[in-house]
C-alpha cells in the first residue's frame, strides 16, 4: 500500500522537495495531486535521509507548499508496450494524445533500459540503401548503426531525414515491408515541424508503421528528458521482441541537451562546458548506445538523431560529445545549402564508421571502398584549390588545380545534388562517381589499386 504525503518543503524550477518520507527508492515515480484534483507525475532524482527531490514532469506551476498530496508509486518510469503502438501518436512520456484512447499493453518496461552486453551484440554489416548518393557512397548507413545528422537552423535536415525514412524502407532484405517500423521522437521542436513529419509519413503511406512521441517546444521541459527514452524503449521492444527493423528518428538532440542543462542547473549541480552538466556524455551515451543488433533477434534498431549545431559550431558540446559516441555523422554545410545543393551534405567532415565492413565485394560492389576514398581525397584537394583561387584568382591556377575546380563543381551539381524524391540505386551512384573521376588525370587517383582503375576508370578527355 502506498502512503500519501501532504504538502511540500520547497519548490525550485521544475523540482519539488518533500520531506518526512520513508522508504522512497531512487528514480521511483510519484504522482502529485493538486487541490483542484489535477494530477501530475514526477520522478525522484535525489534522496537524502527522509527528504526526496522530485522532478515534476508537467512543471511546477500552480504548486504551492500546502496545496498538494504526493503519492509514491513504488516503481521507476515505465512505458506500456504493444504492437498496437504502431500508427499512434503519444505525448513525451508515452500517453496517447491522438484521441484514440489507450492501447492494450502486452508488456511494461522501465524506460531507462539496460546496457546491452557487448558480447551479445552482433557487429552491424548490412548496408541500407537510402537512394541518396552522398550517403550511400560516402557515409554509408548500416543497419543497426547510429548515424546522426549534424545540421543548423534553417537547413533541410527534416527533409533529409524523411527522405531517408521513405527510401530506406524499400530495400528490406527479404522484401517484407511488415518488418519495417519507424519510431519518431520530437523533443522541443515546433508544431509545424512535427506536423511536417506527420504529413510526410502520411503522404508516403507509412503512417501506420510509425510510432510518434511528441514533446513540442511548449511542452514541459522535464518530459523532454523522458521522451527519447520512451521512444527507444518502444524501438527495442519492436526490434528485439517482434523482430522488426526499426528506424529511430530523434529530433532535436540539442533541445534535449538544453533541457538536461536546465534541470541540472535548478538542481544546483556544478556545470562543466557551456553550463552543460558533467555527465552529458554519459547521458547522451545512454541514449545513443541503445542502437544495434543483438544475438537471438532478427530485428535491429538504427538511429538517425538530428541535432542543430548552435551557430553552426561543430565544437559545441552537443555535436562534439555526440560525435564521440555515434558511429559517424552526416554534416550539412551552410555554404552548399546557400548554393542550392540538396541534400547539402558537407562530405569532408562526414563519416560513417561502420561502412568499412559493410561495403565492397559481397556487400555493394568491389570498387566501392576505393572509390569513396578517392572521392574524399579528390574533394579535399578541390577545397585546397578553392582557397588558393580565392587568393590568387582562378585564372592563375595551374592546369591541374583548374581541373580540380571543375571536378568540384560537377561533383556538387551532379553527385551531391539530387531531387527530394530521387531514389538512386547504388550502382548508379558508383557509376556516377567514376564518371566524375574521369575528369581528373589517372595519375591523380592514388587511392585506387591498378586493377580497379583499369576496370572502372575512363578518362573524360
Amino acid at each position, binding site marked *: 500500500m502506498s502512503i500519501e504525503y501532504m504538502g511540500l518543503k520547497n519548490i525550485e524550477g521544475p523540482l519539488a522537495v518533500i520531506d518526512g518520507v520513508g522508504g522512497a527508492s531512487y528514480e521511483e515515480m510519484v504522482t502529485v495531486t493538486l487541490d483542484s484534483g489535477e494530477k501530475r507525475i514526477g520522478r525522484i532524482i535525489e534522496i537524502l535521509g527522509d527528504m526526496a527531490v522530485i522532478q515534476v514532469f508537467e512543471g511546477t506551476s500552480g504548486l504551492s507548499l500546502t496545496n498538494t498530496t504526493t503519492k509514491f508509486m513504488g516503481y521507476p518510469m515505465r512505458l506500456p508496450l504493444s504492437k498496437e503502438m504502431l500508427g499512434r501518436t503519444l505525448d513525451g512520456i508515452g500517453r496517447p494524445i491522438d484521441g484514440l484512447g489507450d492501447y492494450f499493453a502486452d508488456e511494461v518496461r522501465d524506460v531507462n533500459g539496460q546496457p546491452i552486453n557487448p558480447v551479445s551484440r552482433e557487429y552491424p554489416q548490412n548496408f541500407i540503401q537510402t537512394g541518396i548518393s552522398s550517403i550511400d557512397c560516402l557515409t554509408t548507413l548500416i543497419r543497426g548503426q547510429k548515424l546522426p545528422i549534424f545540421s543548423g537552423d534553417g537547413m533541410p535536415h527534416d527533409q533529409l531525414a524523411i527522405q531517408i525514412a521513405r527510401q530506406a524502407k524499400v530495400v528490406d532484405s527479404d522484401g517484407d515491408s511488415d518488418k519495417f517500423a519507424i519510431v519518431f521522437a520530437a523533443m522541443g521542436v515546433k508544431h509545424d515541424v512535427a506536423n511536417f513529419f506527420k504529413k510526410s509519413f502520411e503522404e508516403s503511406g507509412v503512417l501506420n508503421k510509425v510510432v510518434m512521441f511528441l514533446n513540442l517546444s511548449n511542452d514541459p521541459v522535464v518530459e523532454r528528458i523522458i521522451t527519447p527514452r520512451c521512444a527507444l524503449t518502444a524501438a527495442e521492444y519492436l526490434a528485439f521482441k517482434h523482430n522488426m527493423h526499426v528506424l529511430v528518428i530523434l529530433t532535436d538532440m540539442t533541445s534535449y541537451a538544453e533541457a538536461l542543462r536546465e534541470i541540472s542547473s535548478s538542481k544546483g549541480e556544478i556545470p562543466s562546458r557551456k553550463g552543460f552538466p558533467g555527465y552529458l556524455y554519459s547521458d547522451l551515451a545512454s541514449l545513443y548506445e541503445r542502437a544495434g543488433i543483438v544475438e537471438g533477434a532478427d530485428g535491429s534498431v538504427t538511429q538517425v538523431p538530428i541535432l542543430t549545431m548552435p551557430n553552426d559550431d561543430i565544437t559545441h558540446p552537443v555535436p*562534439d560529445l555526440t560525435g564521440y559516441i555515434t558511429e559517424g555523422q552526416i554534416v550539412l554545410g551552410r555554404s552548399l545549402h546557400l548554393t542550392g545543393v540538396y541534400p547539402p551534405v558537407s562530405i569532408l567532415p562526414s563519416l560513417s564508421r561502420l561502412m568499412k565492413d559493410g561495403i565492397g565485394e559481397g556487400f555493394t560492389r568491389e570498387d566501392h571502398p576505393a572509390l569513396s576514398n578517392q572521392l574524399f581525397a579528390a574533394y579535399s584537394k578541390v577545397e585546397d584549390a578553392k582557397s588558393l583561387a580565392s587568393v590568387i584568382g582562378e585564372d592563375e591556377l595551374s592546369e591541374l588545380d583548374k581541373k580540380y575546380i571543375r571536378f568540384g563543381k560537377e561533383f556538387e551539381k551532379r553527385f551531391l545534388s539530387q531531387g527530394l524524391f530521387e531514389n538512386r540505386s547504388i550502382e548508379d551512384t558508383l557509376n556516377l562517381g567514376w564518371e566524375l573521376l574521369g575528369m581528373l588525370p589517372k595519375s591523380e587517383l592514388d587511392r585506387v589499386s591498378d586493377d580497379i582503375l583499369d576496370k572502372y576508370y575512363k578518362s573524360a578527355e
Partner: protein
Amino acid sequence: MEETKGYIFGINGPVVKVKGSDKFGMQEMVYVGDDRLIGEVIGVKEEITIVQVYEETTGLKVGEPVVGYGRPLSVTLAPGILSDIFDGIERPLKDIKKLSGVFIERGLKVSSLDEERKWEVTVTAKIGDEVSGGTIIATVPETGLITHKIMIPPPVSGKIVWTAPSGSYNINECIARVENGGKVTDITLKQEWPIKTPRPFSKRQPITKPLVTGQRIVDAMFPLAKGGAAAIPGGFGTGKTMTQHQLAKWCDADIIVYIGCGERGNEMTQVLNEFSELIDPKSNRPLLDRTVLIANTSNMPVAAREASIYTGVTLAEYYRDMGYHVALMADSTSRWAEALREISGRLEEMPAEEGFPAYLASRLSQFYERAGYVTNLNGTEGSVSIIGAVSPQGGDFSEPVTQNTKRFIRCFLALDKSLAYARHYPAIAWLDSYSEYIPDLEEWFAENAAPDFIEKRNRIMAILQEESSLMEIVKLIGADVLPDSQKATLEVAKVIRLGFLQQNAFHPDDTYVPLEKQNKMMDIILQYDKRMADIVSRGIVVSKVAGTGIADEIVRVKYTIGNDDMTPFAKLSRRIDDVFDEIIENS
C-alpha cells in the same frame, strides 16, 4: 574478516551516502542494498560514509543495508584471464550473458574466472625451496600462445613444506604450502590484488627497446618504447580507435590488455570478432590468445568506468611479473577523467578547470607511472607499456585532460582533423607529434634496423618541416612561383606523405610493415631526394621528373613490394638512377 554494517541514507546517481557505522575504511569494497550492488568507499566523514556504486542505483531505498568486509576492491588473478572479455570490475561478460541474456542486469553474482575448469599444472617448486613474493612455483599453458606462471602472492614468503604433484587443478585447489615462522599458507593458482595498488617489482630498468608496431609513422618517426607511456589525442572521427586497434593487432608485445573505457559497444564487439579471426603470423594462433579485453561501454555505469582503467593495469602488471612484455591500450582516458568529474560533481567538491576535480593530474600520473620496464621480484624482466587515447573536447588540445596527460607521457601521437578529412590515415600530424624516446632507442635501432636509421628519420622530418613552411607561401601565391629547389622539396615531401606516412590498414601487406622494409622505403625516398637535388643543381627544371611517373612508382612501393622479399628494392633503386640519368642526358 569482520563485517561492517551500515544503512543507506542518501542517493544521488552513483553516489550513495551511508550512515550507521564509522568503521568503513577508505577504498573498502562494500555491498550496497538488498540487491548487493558492488561499491567502493570514497569518503569517510564523521557520521556519513560516501560510497560510489558500480551498478545502476535505480530502485535503491533509504534504509537498505550496506555491508563491508574490510577488503579493498580487488581483481582475481589466475589462469583464464586471457582471451576473455570482462567489465570494469572484472566480471566476465560471457557469463553475465548466460545469466541475464542480451542486457546486463544489476546485482548479478558471477565469479571473475571459471572456478570449475581444470588446468594442466606443472609444479616446478620443490619441498624445501625458499620462496618469496613473485617466485614462480608452477606453470600452466593458458592459451596456445602464453604459458601462465603461478607466482607466490606478495607478501607471502617462507619455505615450501608441501607441493602437489603436477596434474589437473582448478584455480581454488591448493598446489603448495609455504611455512613461515610456524604459519602455513596455502598457495592456489589464484591470487587477489587490490586494483589501486601497483604490484611490487624489484627495480626499474632504463628504457632501451622500442615497441615495434609495423606502423611506419610510429616506428620510424615517433617510436613507442617497451615500458613507455604514450598518448593518442584526437577529435572525433580522426581515427583514435582505428590506430589503437592497429597497435593492438601488430605490436610486438607478448600480451595485450585492451580497455574500452566509456566507448562504443559495437567497437568492443568488433575487437572481439576480429581478434578471434585474425591469426598472428609469428605463432599461427588467433590474436585473442594473447589479448584480454575490458569493456565498460559508454552506457554502462559510470563508476565502473573509473575502475576499469585500474583493473586493466593490474592485469597488465600481473603478466609483467611473469616476465612478459605487456601493452595496455586505454580507449579512452578522457571518458575515465569524465567519470572522475561526474563523481566529483556529485560529491560537491570544489572543481578546478572545466569542472574537473583538482586531483585529475595526480590520478593521471598514478596511472601512467604504472608503466615501466622492470626487473621483477623473481628476477625476470618484463614491461608494461601504456598507450592511452585522449578525446579532447572540440578537438582542442589545450583542454585539461590532454594538457595534464602530456606531462606524464613521453610519446605524443597527435591526430589531426584535416588529415582525417582528406582520408590520410593514420591521421597522425607529423609536426605536432613527438617521441622523447628516440635518444633512448637510437642504439637499438642502429643495431637492429640500420646504423643510420635515426639519421634518415631526421632527414625525412626535416623535409616535412621545410614543406610546411613552404606551404605557407604556396597558400598565398601558388606553387608555380617557387624556385626549383623548393619545388623539389615539395615533390619529395609529397612522396613521403603519400608513400611513407600514409598506410593502408585494410591492405594485407601494408597493414603491417616490418622494420626492414621501412628502412628500405626510407632509403628509396632519400635516394629520390638526392637525385632531385642533383638535377636542381644542374639547373634542370623539376617538372621534367613529373612526366616520368617515377614518383608514382615510389609511392606504390607499399603495395608492389611484399614484406618478405626485399630484393625488388635494388631494382627500383637502379630504375630511379636510370630515370634521372636519362633526364640529365637529355638536357
